[in-house]
């Protein structure tokens, strides 16, 4: 029997008197790259937040690595995430930000220069994050998801603010992470990008999964 990595069962979420998730169900049982596509407001980010435990479903159940989220544990364990609302310290450098997170994750900080180079940032650059370009902030956000060497990664709209070169870099990075055994959930309104990386894509609209596509 395959234990699900991530299982969402009939989850609805009401937020500010509106249903933002309507009876979402999915079952991820093996490592892969799973895309979530849909227009703004379709429920992609909200789906990720319910998986992580950041929002409480109005009904339904979310299980990650066998733990029921918000019942057996507040937040999901062993998931790295990159989401724009949960940012880094703007008046510190990229290195300083990652050092803090790595210590909290009980991971040695000697890997930080490698990690920064891995996402295309310069570890010698001591500029504050507040002076980073949007693309650099996006890369740093992805780096924070990689701290802790988690089995599952959630990347919410990582293609935002990335130019063509940046997207190509991201594609290479995501495929490389999959080769290393990670399960990656990645959202984008750019379905072309998702088709170039994902093994399976969930299409969302108005809070529902309207189509699943094996790539």
């Amino acid at each position, binding site marked *: 029997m395959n234990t699900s990595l991530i299982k969402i069962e009939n989850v609805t979420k009401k937020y500010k008197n509106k249903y933002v998730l309507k009876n979402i169900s999915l079952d991820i049982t093996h490592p892969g790259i799973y895309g979530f596509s849909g227009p703004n407001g379709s429920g992609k980010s909200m789906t990720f937040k319910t998986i992580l435990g950041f*929002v*409480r479903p109005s009904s339904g159940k979310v299980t990650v690595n066998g733990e029921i989220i918000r019942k057996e544990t507040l*937040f999901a364990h062993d998931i790295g995430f990159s989401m724009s*609302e949960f*940012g880094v*310290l703007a008046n510190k450098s990229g290195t300083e930000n990652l050092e*803090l997170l790595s*210590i*909290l994750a009980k991971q040695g900080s000697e890997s930080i220069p490698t990690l920064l180079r891995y996402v295309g940032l310069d570890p010698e650059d001591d500029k504050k994050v507040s002076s980073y370009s949007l693309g650099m902030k996006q890369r740093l956000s992805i780096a924070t998801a990689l701290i802790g060497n988690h089995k599952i990664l959630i990347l919410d709209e990582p293609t935002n603010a990335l130019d063509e070169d940046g997207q190509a870099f991201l594609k290479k990075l995501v495929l490389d992470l999959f080769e290393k055994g990670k399960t990656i959930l990645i959202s984008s309104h750019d379905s072309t990008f998702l088709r170039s990386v994902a093994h399976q894509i969930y299409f969302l609209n108005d809070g529902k999964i309207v189509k699943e596509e094996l790539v």
Partner: protein
Amino acid sequence: MSHFLSLILKRNTTLMWENIRIRFFLIIIMDCLIIFRSGSLEIALQGATITMSTPILPINWFFLVMSPFMVIGDYIEKAIKRDYPMVNTISVEMYLLIVAMQVIGVTSFMTMLWGLTSFKNINLLFLCYVYLALNILTLVYGVISTLLGSVIGQLIFISMLLLATGDTYIPVLSSLMKIHFSENGVYLDIVTLILLVIVVLWSPYLLEKIDFNG
């Protein structure tokens, strides 16, 4: 204190300062001006009971008592809903303790500065009561602002303080006015404060109900 906790405290101090620094300086200056112009902290916190014949809001008292909540603003709400998920390897209880220490630090600094600004004619017992009450009320404000939002939290406190200026005795709040403070009667307020602390200590369980929505 463990290395992790000191790191989180350092991180959160940076985040808090970014959030509150402008409000902090403006309100501290206003507080000091109020106390200086009044002559002493006791006179500034004298308060008054609004009646039909004296319908005047004790604005100095009102502003001073609201000061800590105005300075802290939405920091607690953001510290929990936006800033905790990134560091959720730290237990929620420990994280809340750190946030509580931070806001107590701010409120304590403000009330002690009030005492220093009014270095003569201080009723020490009244000052200690104000210090204790405002620190605990700040934590209660933190719980309310996390659950309902900081705007609603401030409106609730404004409403309660307005009620306290009426004829009705409101535990804890009425005694923040010097005219109502009594060394004999303060024990009821202390008991109320202890009950409020119990409510605050229960707050980690309430976090299961909220959304950490950034």
